C-alpha cells in the first residue's frame, strides 16, 4: 500500500559556514552573505520519507515549503533526490512570520492538499533553532506527533512505529496515522541527488520563474506537467489574514546581543504542572518571554 507523505522543508542561510560578514550591524542575519541551503534536518526527514517510499511502492512524496520565490530551489532539490512533486507557499503576506504564523500558513496549505497519511519535518531549522513549527502544525491539524524521530520502523495498517532519539537513549513508540513526525540529525543522512533525476527535473519551475525567464524551454512545462512546481499565494489557501505574517506573529524581538557561547549546566524539567509553572515564572522574570 502506498503512502501519501508530505515533507515540510525550509530554505535556510548556511549558518554552518559563517564568514565575518554573516551578521549585519543591527544584529540580524545577513542573508545575502550566506548560501541558501536545504535545512539539514529537513534532509534527514526527506530521507525517512524516501525510505518509506522504497519500502511501500506507490508511495508519493510531496515537498511543502514556505519562503520567497527562490525557495523553489528546495523543491527541485527534493525532486532530485526522489520526491514526486512540490508546493511553494509564497506571498508578501507571509513575510515576517514567526513560528506561530508559519505553522498556521503551513497547516492551511496542508488542509488544502488534504490527502495525506504522514507529515515529516526536520526537528528544527539551523537559522532559528526553535523546533516549534513541526509540533505547532500537528496541534493545528489536531494530529498526533512524534518528535526526535531517528528511524521510522514501519507505517502500515494505519499505524506508524518510530524510534525516537532522546537524551539518554532511544525509545520506540507507535502512533495512529495520519500523524506528524519530526526527525533528528541522528537519523541517516539524505541520499545524494540522482543524476538522471537532476537532468529530468532541472527545468522544473514555478509559474513566476517561468514568466521571469525569457529564453528557451518555455513549452516544456506544457508537454511535461511534472515540470510545474505549484506556487500558492495567500489567495490559493483558505486563511484568516489576521493569523498571518508579521501581524500574526506574537514574537517580538526586544533586542539583539552578540554573545559568546558558554556551556552552562543544563536544567531538567519534568513534565508536571508545578515545574512547568516554575519555569514560566522564571522565564518571565528574566524577560526571556513576556
Amino acid at each position, binding site marked *: 500500500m502506498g503512502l501519501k507523505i508530505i515533507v515540510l522543508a525550509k530554505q535556510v542561510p548556511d549558518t554552518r*559556514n559563517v564568514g565575518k560578514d554573516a551578521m549585519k550591524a543591527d544584529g540580524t542575519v545577513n542573508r545575502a552573505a550566506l548560501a541558501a541551503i536545504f535545512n539539514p534536518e529537513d534532509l534527514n526527514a526527506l530521507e525517512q520519507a524516501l525510505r518509506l517510499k522504497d519500502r511501500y511502492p506507490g508511495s508519493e512524496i510531496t515537498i511543502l515549503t514556505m519562503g520567497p520565490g527562490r525557495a523553489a530551489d528546495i523543491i527541485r532539490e527534493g525532486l532530485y533526490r526522489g520526491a514526486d512533486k512540490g508546493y511553494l507557499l509564497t506571498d508578501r503576506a507571509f513575510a515576517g512570520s514567526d513560528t506561530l504564523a508559519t505553522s498556521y500558513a503551513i497547516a492551511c496549505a496542508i488542509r488544502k492538499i488534504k490527502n495525506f497519511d504522514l507529515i515529516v519535518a526536520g526537528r528544527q531549522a539551523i537559522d532559528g533553532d526553535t523546533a516549534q513549527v513541526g509540533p505547532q502544525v500537528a496541534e493545528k491539524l489536531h494530529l498526533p506527533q512524534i518528535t526526535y524521530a531517528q528511524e521510522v520502523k514501519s507505517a502500515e495498517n494505519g499505524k506508524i512505529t518510530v524510534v525516537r532519539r532522546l537524551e539518554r537513549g532511544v525509545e520506540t513508540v507507535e502512533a495512529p496515522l495520519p500523524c506528524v513526525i519530526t526527525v533528528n540529525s541522528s537519523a541517516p543522512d539524505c541520499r545524494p541527488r540522482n543524476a538522471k533525476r*537532476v*537532468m529530468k527535473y532541472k527545468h522544473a519551475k514555478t509559474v513566476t520563474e517561468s514568466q521571469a525567464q525569457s529564453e528557451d524551454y518555455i513549452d516544456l512545462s506544457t508537454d511535461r506537467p511534472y515540470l510545474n512546481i505549484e506556487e500558492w499565494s495567500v489567495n490559493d489557501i483558505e486563511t484568516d489574514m489576521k493569523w498571518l505574517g508579521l501581524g500574526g506573529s506574537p514574537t517580538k524581538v526586544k533586542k539583539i546581543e552578540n554573545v559568546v557561547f558558554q556551556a552552562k549546566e543544563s536544567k531538567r524539567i519534568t513534565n508536571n504542572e508545578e515545574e512547568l509553572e516554575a519555569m514560566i515564572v522564571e522565564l518571565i522574570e528574566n524577560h526571556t518571554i513576556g
Partner: protein
Amino acid sequence: MANFFTDNPDLKFHLTHPMMEKIVALKERNFADKDTFDYAPMDFEDAMDSYDKVLEIVGEICGDIIAPNAESVDQEGPKIVNNEVVYAKGTQENLDALVEAGLMGITLPRKYEGLNFPIVPYIMAADIVSRADAGFVNIWGLQDCAETINEFGDEDQKARFLPRISNGETAAMDLTEPDAGSDLQAVQLKASFNEKDGKWYLNGVKRFITNGDGHVALVLARSEEATQDGRGLSMFIYDRNSKAVIVRRLENKMGIKGSPTCELVFKNAPAELVGSRKMGLIKYVMALMNGARLGIGAQSVGISEAAYREGLNYAKERQQFGKAIIKFPAVYELLSTMKAKLDASRTLLYETSRMVDVYKTYMHISEERKLEPQERDEMKRYQKMADYFTPLLKGMTSEYCNQLAYDSLQIHGGSGFMKDYPIERIYRDARITTIYEGTTQLQVVAAIRGVTTGGYLDRIREYEAMELRPELHGFRRTLIGMTEEYVHAAKTVVDVKDNEYVDFHARRLVEMAGHIVMGYLLLLDTQRNEMFKNSTEIYIHMGKAENTSRAEFIHNFTLDDLGVYKLV
C-alpha cells in the same frame, strides 16, 4: 562540506573547452533523444549544464563521503569471506552513494539506461574521484568494461549486461596471469567449447585482477587449441551469478589498498564469447587497454591534485626559522613546479579525452549510418592522434604523479613519513600508476611510433599555428626552438637505422615530444584564461632545460656506446 568539483575552477575550465560543442553534437546525434528520454538534453547549453550539475554531485560525494573514508579504507581493506570479496565498510559506502546518485554507466547510451555522457565529463568524474581516493576509482572506473561490451558485444549481450552496469553492478577485466603480465600473448586460461550445450567454459587461473569478484567480467582466454601467441586468444564475458569462479587470494599491496586485487580460479566457468574468435587480444584488449590507460591518466591527475593540495597546505601552515616554510626558495620552487606539472598533466588528459570522444562517437555513428567521406577522414585522424596521445598521457602523467607525491611528502619532512598525514597514503597509492595497464616503459614502446612517424610533430605544428595574444608570442618562440631541437634529435636517432638504438633513446624522445605538447597545451589554455600563465611559464622553462639535456645526451652518443649498457 567540501565539493571537489566546485572548489577547483580548473575542472570547469577544461569542461568548457570550445571543442565540446562538436563533441556534444556528435554524441547527442543532434539531440535526437530529447523526446524519448526525459533526462536527455534539448541543446548544447542544456547538455553542458547537465554535465556541470552531475559533476557537482560527484564533487559533493567525493568531498563528503569518499575522501573522509579514504583513511579507514586504506587501513581496513577488503577481505575474502566464503570465496567472495567483501569490501571495506567505507568502500561499500562510497559505492552505494555513487550508485544511488546514478553515476554508473556514465558513457553508455540511454537505451541501456546510461547517461550518454561523452568521455570528457566521465574522465573528469574519474579525476575528481581519484583525488578523493585513488584506490576507490579502480572499482568505480571499471565501468569502462561496459564500453568494450558496447563496442564489440552483440545486441543481445548489450541488452542483458549494459543496464546491469548502469544500475550499479561492478565490472572486472581479467587479463593478467602468473606468466602473462606485460606479455599478454602468453595467456593460458583455457576456453573450451562444449558442442552439446553450445556453450564456452573457462578453466585456469588469473592473477592480479582488480575487483576480480565484480559482477561482470571480461576475460581473455585461449580459445584455439595448440596455439601459443596472441592470435589464439578470444574475449569472453563471465557473469558472477554463475558462481563458478573462486577468489583464492587477495594481494597484500603497498598502496590502493581498498581495491581488491584478486587471484581467481575458474572451474568450468560458463562464459560468452564477445565478438569474433581470435580477436581477443589483437582488437578487443587493445581497445579496452586504451580506455583503461585514459583512466589511469585521470587517476594520476587526481592523485597529483591531492598531493599538490596536501603539500601546499602543509607548507603554508608549517613554521620553521620563524616563518612559513613556503617562503623558502627550496620549497616554493617545489610547489610551483608541482603545480605546473599538475596543470600540464590535466590539460593533456582532457586533450586526449576529446580526441577519443570524437573518434569513438564517429565509430558508434558508423554503426547507425554510413559516414560521409569527410566524417570518415576526421574519425581516422582523431583515432590516430588518440593512439599517439594515450600512451604519452599514461606515461607522462603517471610519472608526474609519482614525482608530485614524492615532492609533497618531502615538503612534509618527517611528518610526511608518519601515518598522521594523508600524503603517506597518497605516496603509496601513486606508485602503481606507472606500472599497471602497461608500465611506463611499455607506454614508450607505443608512443615512440608518434615520434618516428611524425605524429606528434604534426600535432605540434597545428598548435604552433593557433592564434595567440601578442604577449604570449615569446612562449611560442621558445616552443618553436624546442621543436627544432626535438626534430633534430629524433632524426639523429632514426638515421642510425637500428631498432635497438631507437628503443634505447625512445624514452628521451617521447619525453621531449611530451614537454613540447604540454607546453603548447598550457599556452593555449593561457590564451583562454590567464590563470594558467604561471604554470605555462614554469613548465616551458623546465621543459626547455629538460629537452636540452636529453638532446645533449643523444648528440654525444653513438651506437658503439650502447655496448657498455649491456654488460649489466
